[in-house]
């Protein structure tokens, strides 16, 4: 919420003869606590209401002129904070475009509420899906409810030229815009696109590319994607501006639920949700998971992460071969890291007999990739 104050100086000097003496300073108070001061006749303050309890609060200004007069104006406001901001980085700038259209319409079946705000950065591509006007640039939508399963009717916030979804700055700017203009107590970021694990990559030899969010309109395939190191740069850059961390990241993309990703993003979020295996084109069931969120908007990040996993399971059970999980990150992940470090050292130091055992185990574990063997 932005508070703008503009003081019109109608005071007179003490002898009431010479007209306004000029504004010396303005002070802005919220609940009797000074939050900003200006030495001009106006000020603008971005009030992070999510840091205040829902209910009535007092905004007061004290303005001082140059001869000691003080003017006080006070207003009462009722704060109703949103609980969750649901940010979707919807990269349909590739062969998944038709699924992106479907998922956008699924989100619209629920829509934003006063407690849940859904913001989608949607990039499309020429060709593939020609519906909805076949626009092929990037658009920012505030998702609103409608019952049309085929057509996008949400509020268009910005109509960009083509955006490079594989650019760190595109991701960073989206997060900053969302968290600044649609503030909420908690935030979930969804990566929507192809996914393919982590480095190493060897594009010139076997066309193996590792990352998420390919932007096929951007030259440079297969390097035109967000690698996991680029993502954490964007997350940390955004956090420096917003002062807030993303509470949960949901990877609606294949093959991303990996140790390496969790390690890299440990301090970028508290819950990493995603799949070890291939994710079917239909991806998450956005209608169900957003319905559950709107029915219980005070869900904690832990509860919401579990809900996403459970809803995915409910949707695909009996239909497909899928995996879905969440990993607790943040400082909680330190224990996993320390145990893993001991484990990795032991593996590295294994003698030949132990290596034979490890190879036998390796031959029998579940394998999730699609290109290496």
């Amino acid at each position, binding site marked *: 919420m932005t508070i703008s104050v503009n003081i019109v100086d109608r005071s007179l000097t003490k002898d009431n003869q010479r007209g306004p003496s000029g504004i010396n300073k303005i002070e802005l108070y919220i609940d009797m606590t000074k939050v900003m001061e200006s030495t001009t006749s106006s000020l603008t303050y971005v009030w992070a209401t999510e840091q205040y309890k829902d209910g009535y609060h007092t905004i007061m200004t004290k303005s001082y002129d140059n001869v000691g007069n003080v003017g006080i104006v006070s207003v009462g406001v009722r704060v109703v904070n949103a609980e969750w901001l649901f940010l979707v980085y919807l990269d349909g700038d590739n062969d998944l475009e038709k699924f992106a259209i479907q998922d956008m319409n699924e989100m619209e079946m629920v829509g934003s509420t006063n407690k849940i705000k859904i913001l989608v950065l949607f990039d499309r591509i020429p060709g593939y899906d020609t519906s909805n006007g076949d626009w092929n640039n990037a658009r920012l939508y505030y998702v609103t409810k409608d019952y049309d399963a085929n057509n996008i009717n949400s509020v268009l916030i910005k109509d960009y030229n083509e955006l490079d979804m594989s650019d760190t700055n595109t991701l960073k700017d989206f997060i900053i815009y969302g968290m600044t203009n649609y503030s909420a107590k908690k935030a979930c970021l969804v990566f929507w696109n192809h996914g393919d*694990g982590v*480095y*190493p990559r*060897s*594009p*010139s*030899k*076997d066309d*193996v590319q590792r990352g998420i969010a390919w932007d096929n309109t951007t030259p440079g395939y297969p390097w035109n994607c967000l690698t*996991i*190191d680029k993502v954490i740069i964007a997350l940390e850059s955004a956090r420096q501006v917003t002062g807030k961390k993303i509470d949960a990241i949901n990877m609606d993309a294949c093959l991303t*639920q*990996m*140790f*390496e990703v*969790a*390690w*890299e993003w*440990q301090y970028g979020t508290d819950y990493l949700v995603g799949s*070890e*295996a291939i994710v079917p084109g239909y991806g998450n069931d956005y209608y169900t998971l957003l319905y559950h969120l709107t029915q219980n908007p005070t869900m904690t990040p832990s509860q919401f*992460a579990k809900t996403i996993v459970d809803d*995915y*399971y409910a949707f*695909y*059970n009996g*239909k*497909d*071969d*899928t*995996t*879905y*999980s*969440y*990993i*607790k990150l943040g400082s*909680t*992940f330190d*224990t*996993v*890291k320390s*145990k*893993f*470090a*001991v*484990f*990795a*050292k*032991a*593996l*590295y*130091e294994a003698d030949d007999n132990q*290596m034979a055992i*490890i*190879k036998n185990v*390796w031959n029998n574990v*579940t394998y*999730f990739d699609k290109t*290496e*063997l």
Partner: protein
Amino acid sequence: MIKVYDLVYTLLNNVYYEDTGKYANTNKAYGVSILIPTYSSWQNYNGYDQYNLLKINQDTYWYYFVQRFAYYTQY
């Protein structure tokens, strides 16, 4: 063995998972995976290898194990 159990026990407290189809049965999945390439795919990475730049490989012996293991599996 103790090291494996330590890690598995810790993971059970940090990872929540649900699997369907073959991953709930014969090809069991446990919620988090890790790269262990074959020798041939590891060879493909020569000259392009950026795996060692990841934090997990900066912090642990994992990269050195993967490298050693890839060569071990060529026979």
